[in-house]
Structure formats: C-alpha cells, structure tokens
C-alpha cells in the first residue's frame, strides 16, 4: 500500500532523527549514570545556533553543525567540570532537580532573549524530496538520518581507537580502576559531557529546519531521548539509533491504525515492556542493566 509504505519510510527517517537526538544522552547516561533532564534544552540551544546562523548567513543547516557542536562542547565541559562533578555522588533525585533547575534557567533565557515565537527556517531546501523507488523521502530528514549514521560511526571509531576514547570507556566500566591506572577522571568525565552535549547541539542544528525553534520544544526531546536510550540500551550508540528506529516505525504504524493523537501510546508501551522484560535494552548486555 502506497500510504503505508510512505508513512513507514518516513518513520524510519524520523527514527534516525530520534536516535541522533538521543546520542548525547546515551553517552552521558552510559558513562556517568547522570540523569540529565536538561538534555532537550541542549538540543534547543543547538537549534537556536542553527537558526541564527541561517538568519545571518543564509547557509545550509549542515554548516551550523560544527559551530553548534563546538559551543555545546564548551558548555558541556564547563558545566560538568565545575558543577555537575560535585553532584555525581549525590542521589538521583537531587541530580534530577539540578537538571530541572538548569532546564528552567535555559528555557527562561531563551524566552527572554528570543521571545516565544517559533522561528522557522524558510528555504526551498527544506521542501525538497528525493524520489526513491516510488517513495518520497524528504531531504532534510534524510540528511539528518545520514548525519546520524555518520556520527555513530565517527564516535564509535573514536571510542574504540583513540586514547581518550579508551579512557572514557574505562571510566564507564570501572571508575575506581580507571582512577587507579592514572586516568584523570574529572577531566575524562568533563570531556564525555562535552561530547555528549556536542552531539545534542549537532542534532539541534540538523533538526532546526524540521521543527521550528522555540523555547518550549525541550521537554518532548528529553522524553523521546530517554525512551530511545532505554529501548536501545544505555551507553550504546548503535543502540540509540536502533531504539530511535524502533520508536519511529512503531509510531508511524500506530498513526496509521489508531487516531494519530494516540500514537505516543506505543512509545510508552514499548518503554514499559522493555523495562519489564529486557531492561538492558536491545543492544545492552544483561550485566549492563542498572
């Protein structure tokens, strides 16, 4: 069926976008077990960077990725090193409120500086479609999906091959052991946070043409990111991508048969199912749970 095929195909693309949004969270959650409920706000910062660069220079969204990532890396590093570091030993609910407060500050700042109006990026590029095998795939989502794949590969290579990457993985596996062998945990954590938030920023820049930037998009992104991460397996980048794809396709299918306003039921249902039946997520290993 033409309708179903098109909708599912788009669901796949959206799923890749969800995965992209979730990368930063899975890294931070996976390495430091920090419940960052301000994740969505980081994505929105990236979106504003994307919008501002377009408004100033009329460039394509891809051009905003590096500046957004760089800015968010700096924010993530500094935030982790100077603030969040002191909260790592504190209980989850305190971390939670810390990030909620940060989220309020960021949202308030956006509202004060940019106002509440949605900032749409108007470019003919955002209406382009690729016609592939009888399906219409829209260009912006396809580019974002491709970027998601690229980022997964790049980060995976970085974490496996580079010294810093190995240090991060060591710190994630066994913090005490890592400290014992001389890894500067505080610095490594800060870099991890920086990378995580850089991913969020890059995701924001890439989705700015898709979702019109405004201060209140954040909570939805945070929720989607958490669901994606748990479905896919905490700490796993391919897992985040798969989790995103699962949600994207499931919601698309749901929107075909249910009243579309109910389609989130499947995401939450999947989340509950996974948490009950396979808490480590699709990719995670059983010891990786909790």
């Amino acid at each position, binding site marked *: 069926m033409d309708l179903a095929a098109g909708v599912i195909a788009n669901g796949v693309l959206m799923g890749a976008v969800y995965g992209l949004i979730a990368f930063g969270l899975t890294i931070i959650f996976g390495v430091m077990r920090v419940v960052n409920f301000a994740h969505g706000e980081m994505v929105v910062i990236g979106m504003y960077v994307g919008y501002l660069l377009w408004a100033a220079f009329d460039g394509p969204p891809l051009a905003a990725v590096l500046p957004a990532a760089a800015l968010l890396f700096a924010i993530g590093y500094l935030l982790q090193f100077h603030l969040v570091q002191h909260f790592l030993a504190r209980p989850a609910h305190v971390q939670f409120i810390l990030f*909620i*407060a940060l989220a*309020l*500050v960021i949202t308030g700042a956006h509202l004060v500086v940019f106002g*509440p109006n949605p900032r749409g990026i108007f470019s003919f590029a955002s209406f382009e479609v690729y016609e592939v095998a009888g399906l219409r795939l829209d260009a912006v989502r396809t580019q974002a999906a491709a970027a998601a794949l690229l980022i997964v590969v790049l980060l995976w290579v970085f974490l496996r091959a580079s010294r810093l990457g190995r240090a991060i993985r060591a710190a994630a596996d066994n913090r005490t052991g890592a400290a014992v062998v001389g890894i500067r945990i505080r610095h490594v954590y800060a870099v991890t946070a920086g990378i995580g938030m850089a991913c969020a920023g890059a995701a924001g820049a890439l989705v700015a043409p898709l979702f019109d930037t405004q201060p209140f998009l954040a909570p939805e992104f945070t*929720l989607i990111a958490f669901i994606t991460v*748990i479905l896919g397996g905490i700490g796993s980048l391919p897992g985040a991508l798969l989790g995103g794809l699962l949600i994207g396709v499931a919601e698309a299918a749901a929107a075909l048969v249910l009243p579309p306003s109910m389609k989130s039921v499947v995401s*939450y249902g999947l989340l*509950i199912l996974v*948490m009950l039946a396979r808490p480590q997520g699709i990719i995670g290993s059983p010891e990786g749970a909790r």
Partner: protein
Amino acid sequence: MRQGAVLIAALAAVLACGPLVLDGYLLSLLALAFAFAFFGSAWSLMMGFAGILSLGHGLYVGIGGYTVAVGLVTFGLSPWLGLPLAGLLCAAAGAAIAWTGFRFAVRGVYFALLTLAAAELARILFEHWPLVGGTGGFFLPALGAGNVPLLSLRGGPDFFYLAFLVLMTAGLLVTLAIRHSRMGYRLMAIREDEDAARASGVPVLRMRIAVAALSGAMTGIGGGMFGLMNGSLFPGSIMGVAASIEVMIAPIVGGLGTVFGPAVGALFVMPVHELSEHLAQEAGVFGLNTLIYGLLVLVVVVFLPAGLAPSVARLLRGRR
C-alpha cells in the same frame, strides 16, 4: 515524637488564624503553598523513607482530581465520598505500579522512568476519554449563592486555605507518625540496604506496596481538592510531566528525610514564583520569571545540599 506533634499542632493553630488577618490574595497563595506542601509530604513518603524516586506523581493528582470532579458533576457524588474514593483508586494505582516494579525487578532510575511512563500513558488515555471530557476539559459549575462550603467542599479563598491547611497538617502528622513507627524503620532499612533488610525479615514487597499506596492515596485526595479549587481539569495540565515535576520541587528544595521539609520547601517556592513574576513585570521582560525561579532553585540545590529545612532549623535553634 511528642515534641514534633506539639510543634505541628501549634503551627496549625497559628496558621488557622489566617482568614482573620489575611486578605484573599494571600489566602489563595498560601492555599496553593499548603497544597504543594501536602503533595510534597505524600511524595516524600516514597522518596524520603524508602528511597524510591517517583517521577509520575501527576498520575495521582489527576486520578484524584477527576474522580472527585466527575463523581460530583456526572454522578452527583458528594466530594465527602469522592475524596475517599479518590484515595482508594490512587492507592490501587500506586500499589499496582509498585508491584509491577518489584515483580520485574525494576529499580532506581528505571523505576522512576516507569512511573513517568505510567503517568504519560494515563494522560494520553484521559485525553481520549469522553467521560472526563478529554482534552476539551472537565468543568465544574459556578458556586451558587446558597453554597455551603462544608457540604460542597468548595468555597472562597478562606475555605480552600483552611481545607489545604488541614491536609498539610495531616500530611505532616502522617509523616511524623511513620517516622517513629515500625513501618518507618522498615522503610528506612530498605532504603539503606534492601538485601540486608530482606535478610533481617523485613517484608520488602509488602512495604514497597504499602508506601506507594499510601503516597498515592494522599496525593489523590490532594488532587481531588485541587480540582475543586480550580473549577476545571485538563489532562495535560493536571497529570502531565510538568505537574509531576512541580510536585517534586518543594520537598527536594525543602529537604528530604525531614518532616517539615515539604512544608518549608512549598512556603519557599510559592513566594519565589510570585516574586519572580513581580520582578519580571517590573522589568517588563517576559520570561524573566522562569529564569529567576530556575536560578533560585539552582542556588538552593547547589549550596544547600540537605535542603532548606535543616538550615531553617539551625537558624531557629541558634536564636534560642
């Protein structure tokens, strides 16, 4: 414990004089503060004693609110019956979630997200349920001239001030009672080391279900009253993530594991909301209130790790 009970009773007695000296605005503001103090006490039972984080307490506010409102308008059920019914339904919901978590060994952050998912699922279902009006909202009729507040459990600002004062006091007393009871010690044992507690013979599953049911029931009753105060209910605002977060802020800022924490927190948070809105109006900058509020909560969380209540207690003790 007797000292605590006396303190609570004294506090309640002093506050009960409110309607004699305060105007409608302060009464309404404090009514809201007392409401969130009560929600906070309820939420704190799970978190403070048993160490169980719930991110979905909006579920109970919503179920409670709708039970009482729909009971009243659609079924003619007096809120005097609606409120206990709300408590029962929410106790059942809380117990069900706790049992599910326990049965499938869902702990910590995962359990927290489970509660969030349950609340969101319920919200979406309520949004599509004609009986409660869906997203169109559920509305209570205006109060007529012959309204008797003690019968209808609705009235002016003085009524809701006193009603929520009663609830807040009850919440404080329940917290105090549990603190010094066997249930309280068992819950704290579970929080510290669940396996050791089980080994010592603590019935872990029963305790978790009990505290979740109690916490849910209290929140539900508060939710019922909250709906009566607002006059209308919408799933997104009464049981959404924002509502769940709002329930949590006061007790965490006030200080967990203390009896007065939620009350201190709520009495801090509400005026801060008003103050930041006032500052934003004066400055003529929209959104400044969100920024200021966030900053103040951030400051408290960062610099007062144990919350406000211990610092307030120290201040008061230092004065003597």
